[in-house]
């Protein structure tokens, strides 16, 4: 079941427009959102997460419109959202943080607590379950953020630049975990990283100044040329967003 944006218009301030009449469908599987800074990737994810609501049009998933109050809780229960900055609740341990996130997502306390350990195992942080979040590295905190999106077994997981600022080893580890997660959930990730796009994602959306430059399979983007898949994607991406090659 895709997430669809039907004629969505959105701007942060009166008179400004990030999206105008956006028509987009994000298919099941793993989808990468590409685009330069300010192209609307994070805004699109915020709309999909129901953190923001479109001024015109609507977002729909499984027939639910999160802008409608009566649909919002059910919609949010289906969606996991990891913003760029992970800000754990001060004083909580890693497992408490993940368990609390599960409770916030509507799970009973006991269930959330039980599943928090499984979520931490998925992101390979179970050994740090009793450590304070404030003692974790940036990469570990990102994995806590990912565990928070997994604890309630969301159907759709939205990750906003999850590997930005991580060193290569941490980034590789995070990609491995995302690959596992993507096998059982609908994963939508905004990223600037095109290196392993072909291996990690099934489809890609390229955004530029609020417009969809490309939306379709990664293979379709690669057809635009280049000696390697990464080069092909980068070449196509730069052409789509009008950057110099």
């Amino acid at each position, binding site marked *: 079941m895709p997430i669809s944006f039907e004629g969505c218009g959105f701007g942060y301030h009166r008179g400004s427009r990030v999206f105008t009449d956006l028509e987009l469908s994000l298919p099941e599987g793993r989808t990468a959102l590409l685009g330069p800074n300010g192209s609307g990737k994070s805004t699109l994810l915020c709309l999909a997460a129901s*953190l923001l609501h479109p001024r015109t049009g609507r977002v729909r998933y499984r027939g639910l419109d999160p802008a409608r109050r009566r649909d919002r*809780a059910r919609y949010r229960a289906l969606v996991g*959202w990891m913003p760029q900055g992970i*800000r*754990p*609740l001060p004083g909580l341990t890693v497992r408490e943080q993940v368990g*609390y996130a599960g409770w916030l*997502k*509507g799970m009973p306390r006991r269930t959330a607590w039980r599943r928090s350990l499984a979520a931490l195992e998925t992101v390979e942080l179970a050994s740090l379950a009793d450590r304070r979040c404030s003692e974790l590295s940036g990469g570990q905190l990102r994995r806590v953020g990912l565990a928070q999106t997994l604890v309630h077994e969301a159907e759709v997981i939205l990750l906003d630049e999850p590997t930005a600022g991580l060193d290569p080893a941490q980034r590789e580890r995070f990609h491995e975990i995302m690959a596992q997660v993507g096998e059982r959930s609908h994963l939508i990730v905004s990223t600037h990283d095109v290196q392993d796009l072909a291996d990690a994602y099934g489809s890609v959306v390229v955004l530029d100044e609020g417009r969809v430059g490309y939306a379709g399979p990664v293979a379709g983007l690669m057809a635009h040329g280049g000696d390697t898949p990464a080069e092909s994607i980068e070449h196509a991406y730069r052409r789509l967003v009008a950057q110099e090659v």
Partner: protein
Amino acid sequence: MPLHRWLRSSAAVAAFPFMIAYLIFVLGGSVEFLEDNWLSATVLVSSAGVLAMGPVCAAAGAWEGARLARGRIGGGVPVRPPVLVLAWSAWPILGGAAAGLLGAFLVLAAAMADVPGTPDPSVLAVALLVILAWTLVGFAVGRYAHPLLGVPLLLVGTWLWLAYPAALETFWVRHLTGNNLGFCCETHTVFHPGALYAQAIVATALAGAAMLAWARGGRTRRVWAGIAALPLAAAAVAIPLVRDMGPEAQVPRSDALVCGEREGIEVCLWPERGKRLDFAARTVVPAARRLSAGSGLPLPGRITEGPADGATSWRFAVPPGADGDDVVFGLATSLLPAEPPVCGPGWSGAEAYRPLSAWLALTAGAGHDVVGRRTGPQALDVAQRTLARPPTEQMRWFRHNLVALSRCDTAPREVSAL
């Protein structure tokens, strides 16, 4: 997550010892004002509880509010509504406050062991509502202010709001805060319902404004206007309820009395003391006859714990644990004016109070020991010398000094010990 896990990181854990220590301090200074009824005990506990725990709970709320804001709870697109998220963080604080109130009751329980009755639930409910309101205000402030600012602001600000109005000569302010319950009430009075309503209205409006600020604050000007309008509307409703009250928020009790008759005189007690009606009648009716005969005052048709006019009805009290002498002493001294007249400096009428008390009590049949203990040896000496005189002279002495107690232009006579 398990409750103990959630409690571990809650500000309530750090705040609780301070709450209890301050509560014990406030309660220790107030317990001497405890009357012989449960309303007085309830008011004492709620008053001390609100003053001691309100500011600490507000500060703890500010800490927790800031904690939730720093954790960007809303940014995680929660399914749980903001009210529930707040309630989950607030319950350890409010649970601590409720435990504090319960503990205070247990401390007072020993002093109230023989007193029939139960705590007044409405007074307790308003006290908890006031604490809840300030805790929520703390959360709302914590959402927008750094804890280094929010916590001391709430701690000091709430304490000032609760404590300072008692020092103002504008009495109605103190009746809005929730801490003005003070030392109400003697057995024949009850807490003024208007003050209770006013406090409940103000606390509810504060809680509502805080919830609005917590759940929807920062979105639109209309929301902020609503947040400001709620306390203002509450003030507009609550102030007229308390504007004309004096320093104490109490009114005469209007419960039905339990009455019986003995030798043609009706004797009435408050319902919770009804079991001692027979004892009271056996004690006060003969004492009233002796008083009437000795003082020349007409025998009343009614002797009551309720309102009395001093002529056709006399007032007395049967507090828990009181023996016959205590009851007779109370009946005898109820014939004296309750308050002195407003006279300038040099008024000497007060000198008659103790000798008259002693003479009336001895005339009514109270034991010398009790009278001496309550009025002092000099007053007892004056009373005994007066009693040795002929009855008509005793009556003249009594009537003259009774006038001296209630008028500024009459000096007392023969009230000094030799």
